[in-house]
């Protein structure tokens, strides 16, 4: 069988690796961005000098050669699904028996006047680093539009080069569309601590240029700011333009069923470019995150190999880092909770650390964990959430979840105290830190 994968991001490469692990089929991976798979989330570290470009590449060429995975640096013009053929930009074509589309996202550009000017930039592709590097040379001030994960990365990148940055965020706090208010405020304050001019409740209206170069922006509050750079980081959308005039069913992304199959026979879509027709309760149709892309890649491979399974991404989790603040989330942590949801929140009085436990007030079942500046064990939190563990059971065993390095202060006791104070109960922390106990708990 000849399996072709369009896209060598985390989804496509995971699919290729899984296919190879379990089969001897011919595997071809096409990419127009880079020959080798790299960690997109690490681009910022290359720019800041933490790593070289080659350090964010997990597998070298030899790995793909040894595993007989064929890589081609080329661009796909379109796909002829009837004849099962991929037409390339240079008019060559590649036939397939099974096709996995894993073309990922592209940055949303919206329709701001002036978005075509030199100096308007997104952060997504490896080539973007080069452009930002060039633009940095004569940058007096950079504007970043958007209060999401890419925006804060771009802010950190410019900040590392001592360039003054203004961030325009539509919401009332940074990323408050996702983070609960206290956490959003903590991150906002932390961003400001880096002398970044964070303008909340502010949107971009127009970009003005001079000789085709960015010169100034106008905000919706009427403020004009001189700048040489405008970073547009207002989210991403599926990268599927090349499939426009085909029979492939699409909405925002390529529509797929629970087996990750599209409406075309033998064609799968995974990762950022895929849109699930019937997502699980509480999940979105399109989840453009690393982890779901990786899961889908693995699942698509299994489905192609006949071990058919439905996509079930399990308990939601994600993580990020905002300058120095690490963030982990497990389960459901709404920024705007409905009635009947209980929250236990503790925040360090001085440091950027907080723990939030979310639970159902009537059943007392744990629903989610939100961590800032503190690390919790994925497997432990997941087990508690999926087994709908009682909040008091979770609290009294909370040390099992702590994943901070040795000698770090642990704050689990303070959460138990807070719970006791709120509810008048007299819970006690049962466990001491011990890997032995964690492994025992996980194997139960």
């Amino acid at each position, binding site marked *: 069988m000849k399996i072709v994968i369009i896209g060598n991001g*985390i989804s496509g490469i995971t699919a290729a690796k899984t296919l190879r692990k379990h089969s001897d089929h011919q595997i071809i991976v096409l990419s127009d961005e880079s020959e080798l798979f*790299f*960690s997109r989330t690490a681009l910022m570290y290359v720019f800041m000098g933490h790593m*070289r470009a*080659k350090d964010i590449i997990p597998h070298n060429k030899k790995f793909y050669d040894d595993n007989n995975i064929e890589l081609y640096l080329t661009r796909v013009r379109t796909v002829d699904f009837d004849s099962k053929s991929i037409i390339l930009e240079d008019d060559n074509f590649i036939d397939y028996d099974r096709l996995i589309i894993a073309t990922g996202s592209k940055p949303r550009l919206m329709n701001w006047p002036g978005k075509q000017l030199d100096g308007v930039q997104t952060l997504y592709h490896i080539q973007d680093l080069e452009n930002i590097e060039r633009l940095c040379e004569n940058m007096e001030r950079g504007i970043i539009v958007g209060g999401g994960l890419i925006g804060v990365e771009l802010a950190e990148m410019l900040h590392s080069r001592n360039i003054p940055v203004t961030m325009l965020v539509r919401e009332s706090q940074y990323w408050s569309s996702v983070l609960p208010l206290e956490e959003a405020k903590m991150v906002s304050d932390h961003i400001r601590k880096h002398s970044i001019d964070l303008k909340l409740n502010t949107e971009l209206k127009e970009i003005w240029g001079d000789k085709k170069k960015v010169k100034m922006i106008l905000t919706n509050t009427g403020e004009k700011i001189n700048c040489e750079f405008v970073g547009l980081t207002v989210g991403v959308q599926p990268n599927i333009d090349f499939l426009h005039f085909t029979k492939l069913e699409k909405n925002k992304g390529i529509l797929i069923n629970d087996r990750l199959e599209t409406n075309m026979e033998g064609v799968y879509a995974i990762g950022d470019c895929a849109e699930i027709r019937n997502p699980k309760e509480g999940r979105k149709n399109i989840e453009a995150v690393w982890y779901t892309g990786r899961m889908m890649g693995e699942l698509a491979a299994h489905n192609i190999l006949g071990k058919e399974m439905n996509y079930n991404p399990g308990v939601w989790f994600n*993580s990020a880092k905002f300058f120095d603040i690490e963030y982990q989330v497990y389960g459901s942590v709404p920024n705007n909770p409905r009635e009947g949801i209980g929250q236990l929140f503790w925040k360090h009085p001085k440091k950027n650390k907080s723990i939030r436990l979310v639970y159902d007030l009537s059943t007392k079942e744990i629903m989610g964990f939100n961590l800032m500046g503190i690390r919790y064990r994925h*497997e432990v939190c997941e087990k508690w959430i999926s087994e709908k563990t009682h909040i008091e059971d979770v609290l009294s065993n909370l040390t099992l979840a702590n994943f901070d390095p040795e*000698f770090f202060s642990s704050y689990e006791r303070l959460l138990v105290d807070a719970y006791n104070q709120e509810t008048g109960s007299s819970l006690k922390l049962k466990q001491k830190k011990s*890997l032995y106990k964690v492994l025992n708990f996980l194997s139960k």
Partner: protein
Amino acid sequence: MNQINHSLSLTESAKRPLNIFQNIGSIIGFSGLATLLISLLNIYAESQVPYLFYGAIGAISLGTIIYTIGSYGGKTEGIKNDYNWLSGLTSKGSFAWIAGIFITTFYVFLYWFPQHLGLGESGAANKGLVGFFDPLSVLLKGEGKFASQWFMYGTLYTLAILIFGIKFIVKYRHNRYQVIRTISVMVFQLGFAFIIPAFLERMSLPYNDFKNVWPLNYYFFDTWNINGMLNAGNIGLFMLIFGIAMVLIITPILTYFFGKRWYCSWVCGCGGLAETAGDSFRHLSDKSQSAWKIERWMIHLVLAISVLMTIAVIYNYRAQETGYLVTTEIFLIGIFSLALILSGFVIYNRNKWIKKQNKIAFQITGGILLSLIAFTAYSYFLKGSNDLFVIQTYKIQKFYGFYIGAAFSGVIGVGFYPLMGSRVWCRFGCPMAALLGLQQKFFSRFRITTNGSQCISCGNCSTYCEMGIDVRAYAEKGQDIVRASCVGCGICSAVCPRGVLKLENGPAIQDRATAKRAIFISEDKVGLLD
């Protein structure tokens, strides 16, 4: 990728501007260093020497601290690795080569031409750089006890661990593991490697660095060292017993509970320098598979050589002396039986070795053990000869001292910091690291655990692993890391932007450390992990 590689040549344009503190710190620090170096010209008047000496040491320390404040003081707590691959000194640029050549040259003179550093030969007074350290030597060791090149070196070495230790602590002040660990290496260096030996010399006792354990301390069983301790009364006897207890009891127990990190990144002086002065170069270690292969060959060969040399040296000692409980015969029979037992162990595990394509390693180990058995048997029938092996013992010692003790650990080990990273010696050459590594791999509770599926394959952990371990390769599979070479510095865990890695001691290491765990999907169901 071609394009981005091209863009990295632009990095010259991304020079980090030095702030005022960094500029002042550099000027003060380099003026202290210059004062040290100018002493080589012998132009200081004798009465000036003490003032200039303490002034130079003070200026180097002050300069480094001011520079540190400039680098990290005004910044928020967190990982500060900006510009590491962009500025020349930390990315093998011209400054790195200058620094590498400078340090290497210093070591060459230190080991083989100390007279050019001013060491007074055959009773003559010290001059130059060594003479510059006389005031401190006399102050610590007593009247008339002038500096040697080793005292000069030890002082500079300790100074480097202390001032760069402060820098390290400021840089990682948010991470208590790093802070405590660094205080530990600073205390062990200052106390055990510097003050106690000076104090022993003041009391006319033999030199001893209690934390320098055989086989890193390859001369521990040398005749002169053993005799020195035996002739130094109760304290000497204590040194001998403590040294042997370190090898046979303390080290195995601590390594079982905590992994080799208790030594390599908490106590050891070589590790101490690598973690402090070498911190800026940790990302330069080679992560390739071939480097790992070379590493396994070299370090285990050095261990084999040092073990054979020590057996020969002890045999030699036994052959000369009489009146001890253990006779030459018993010693030979002991080594013979030990080699037999180890051979049995190797043969028993041969399938495992060959499956891992370690056929050559299997053959070499077998060869070494067989020759050990043959030579001990041969020597048993040739009692009276001073040489255990066909080669004369002193020749092995000379070879080891020159190529491994000096050239490898010093010249390459430290001199190549700016070019090959900070742990070249620890990774490729240290027999102690090899021995502890073997135990860590097979008989220890230490491992690095990974946090479920949170890895984003970014590569920070692998990049900043000074031992060149490709940590990411394990982390992205959700596989716990049990590697012989890991010194447990904890930096992979610190730099991870997603909180994936943790150094832990736990029960017996089982399936979590094998690659059989699926990434997300097990054979029969879809879910996270298995």
